[in-house]
């Protein structure tokens, strides 16, 4: 493949190479609606023309807010191909959070699904994604798109407070796409099932642009309900899924539940098949042994990709036994996002993989993973202060701690930064939650930490815990001074109320009431590490 420097190059290349093949499809009301690469180009050209008519010029921001659907990537390509900057927003955010990001990004136009427009009623200029099919054109507006020009601003946090938008150029994104596709032999006839939200950079790069560059079809899941996923897999012959660890744990749980429900005989047979598969490391044989599982997944699965958060090695090994490879990758929104990735020929379960071509990975003396390459972001939008904290002499400081083995495989072992990574691969920034907890009546100070779940479906994933110190003065002022139990009840109730206002993944799942002041540095910053140690978390 010739080098594609911009998203406009990507759109033009794929139309020229794969025109009549299906690019995107989705089941609606019982029928798969298909968009060929020619259709995508035609609609994107018409839409780009419409953007121009509405006064959108090169560099202007166009926000995207929708559940996954084929119109999303088409609108993204249309905006980027005419030099506008796409601002993908999380469809799960609340209205004030979305408004905050729309304001920060300076978006001139919003592309929104009818469903979300009906619930949020945005008054700013907008276009309904449900209606973009009516636009049609034969050529993109004539203009040069600069590979170093901004293609997208992606907000990773600060939806409620000070927003933090990652600025990615066309070449940031496309260099990552080119790096990933060089590792896989995929092409027309392959079919990706898209399950992760498209505003997540892992999904937009690995689940949309990579397949799009190779002529691979992307099927947008009808819903995330397991029976819809399985039906979509069977009906469209899905061969690859990019998912997060929880999705694979749920698949695994579904398999075990079904075996359980079929009674002790099936359970015993399943156990012997597992023992047999352990003795035979051939994937072909394992696929035959567990043909029932493969049939359930449609019978065409080539591999699964896992990203967003660390996956339990046991999950990878369990699927390996069934003859299904899970390839783990690693990266950050700031790196467009993939830095390292396992491939079918070079796969080490438990490792995050080896760096993509052109990307350098090193460890600092403290063991922090730092990365350099064409995919490293331009910086945080309007936040040179935050950019300077992570980008030093071309090296991006990831905040993750790792090791690199003799063969160059990266293993992530911990984190320096305070960020909590949920099982769905969404970042939660403790200071953002603390900001709100500290404003609650009766709270003196707080420390929010990510705590690993020790059992169950979400084993190994992190959840949000808060250590809260009550404000005695507040309670002393009350007419009837509360006892210890009432005081704790009051604080828990306040946090419960706060939770209702927060986006689901930011909610505090456990509260520890602490009487002693939180340990702090000389600059009065809370020492999270010590809090964790003292509270035995």
């Amino acid at each position, binding site marked *: 493949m010739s080098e594609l420097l911009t998203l406009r190059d990507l759109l033009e290349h794929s139309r020229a190479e794969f025109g009549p093949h299906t690019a995107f499809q989705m089941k609606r009301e019982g029928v798969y609606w298909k968009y060929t690469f020619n259709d995508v180009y035609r609609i994107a050209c018409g839409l780009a023309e419409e953007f121009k008519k509405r006064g959108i010029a090169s560099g202007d921001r166009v926000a995207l807010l929708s559940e996954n659907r084929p119109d999303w990537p088409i609108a993204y390509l249309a905006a980027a191909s005419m030099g506008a900057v796409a601002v993908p927003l999380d469809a799960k955010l609340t209205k004030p959070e979305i408004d905050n990001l729309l304001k920060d990004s300076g978006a001139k136009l919003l592309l929104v699904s009818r469903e979300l427009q009906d619930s949020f009623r945005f008054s700013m200029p907008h276009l309904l994604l449900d209606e973009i099919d009516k636009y049609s054109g034969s050529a993109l507006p004539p203009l040069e798109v600069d590979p170093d020009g901004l293609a997208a601003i992606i907000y990773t946090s600060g939806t409620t407070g000070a927003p933090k938008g990652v600025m990615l150029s066309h070449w940031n994104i496309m260099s990552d796409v080119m790096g990933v596709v060089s590792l896989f032999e995929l092409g027309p006839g392959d079919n990706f099932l898209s399950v992760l939200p498209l505003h997540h950079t892992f999904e937009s790069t690995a689940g949309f642009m990579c397949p799009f560059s190779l002529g691979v079809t992307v099927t947008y899941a009808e819903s995330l*309900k*397991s*029976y819809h996923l399985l039906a979509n897999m069977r009906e469209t012959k899905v061969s690859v899924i990019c998912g997060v660890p929880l*999705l694979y744990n749920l698949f695994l749980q579904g398999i075990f539940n079904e075996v359980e429900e079929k009674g002790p005989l099936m359970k015993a047979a399943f156990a012997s098949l597992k023992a047999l598969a352990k003795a035979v490391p051939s994937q072909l044989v394992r696929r035959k042994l567990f043909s029932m599982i493969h049939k359930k997944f449609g019978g065409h699965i080539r591999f699964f990709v896992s990203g967003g958060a660390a996956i339990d090695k046991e999950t990878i090994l369990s699927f390996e036994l069934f003859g299904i490879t899970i390839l783990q990758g690693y990266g950050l929104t700031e790196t467009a996002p993939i830095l390292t990735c396992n491939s079918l020929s070079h796969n080490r379960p438990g490792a995050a993989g080896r760096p993509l071509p052109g990307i350098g990975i090193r460890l600092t003396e403290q063991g922090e993973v730092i990365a350099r390459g064409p995919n490293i972001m331009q910086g945080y939008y309007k936040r040179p202060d935050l950019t300077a904290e992570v980008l030093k002499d071309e090296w991006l400081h990831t905040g993750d701690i790792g090791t690199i083995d003799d063969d160059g495989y990266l293993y992530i072992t911990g984190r320096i930064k305070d960020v909590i990574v949920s099982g*769905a691969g969404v970042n939660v920034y403790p200071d953002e939650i603390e900001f709100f907890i500290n404003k609650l009546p009766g709270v003196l100070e707080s420390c929010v930490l990510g705590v690993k779940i020790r059992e*169950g*479906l*979400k084993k190994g994933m992190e959840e949000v815990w808060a250590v809260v110190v009550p404000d005695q003065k507040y309670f002393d002022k009350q007419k009837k001074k509360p006892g210890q139990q009432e005081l704790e009840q009051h604080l828990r109730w306040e946090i419960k109320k706060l939770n209702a206002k927060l986006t*689901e993944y930011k909610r505090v*799942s456990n509260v520890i009431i602490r009487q002693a002041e939180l340990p702090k540095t000389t600059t009065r910053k809370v020492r999270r590490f010590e809090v964790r140690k003292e509270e035995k978390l």
Partner: protein
Amino acid sequence: MNNDLENEIRALVAKVIKKPEAQVGLDTNLFTDLGIDSLLGIEIFAALDKKYKVDVPESKLREVQTLRDIIRIVEEALKGGK
């Protein structure tokens, strides 16, 4: 509220999230007290669809905080309200 329905749905939720039924109180917050996230929430809806043949859209998940909310949505759907 129908007690049988309540018990059935409680059992179903507990099974999906792999927690004892006793932990799933009527007003226990499913997200914050039981650590359910949206993917598990959708799995609960999928199990409800399977059992009661009610197709609850994923967007309804936004309205759900507790078991009581789920029961209300299922009751509405069974009545053909939505």
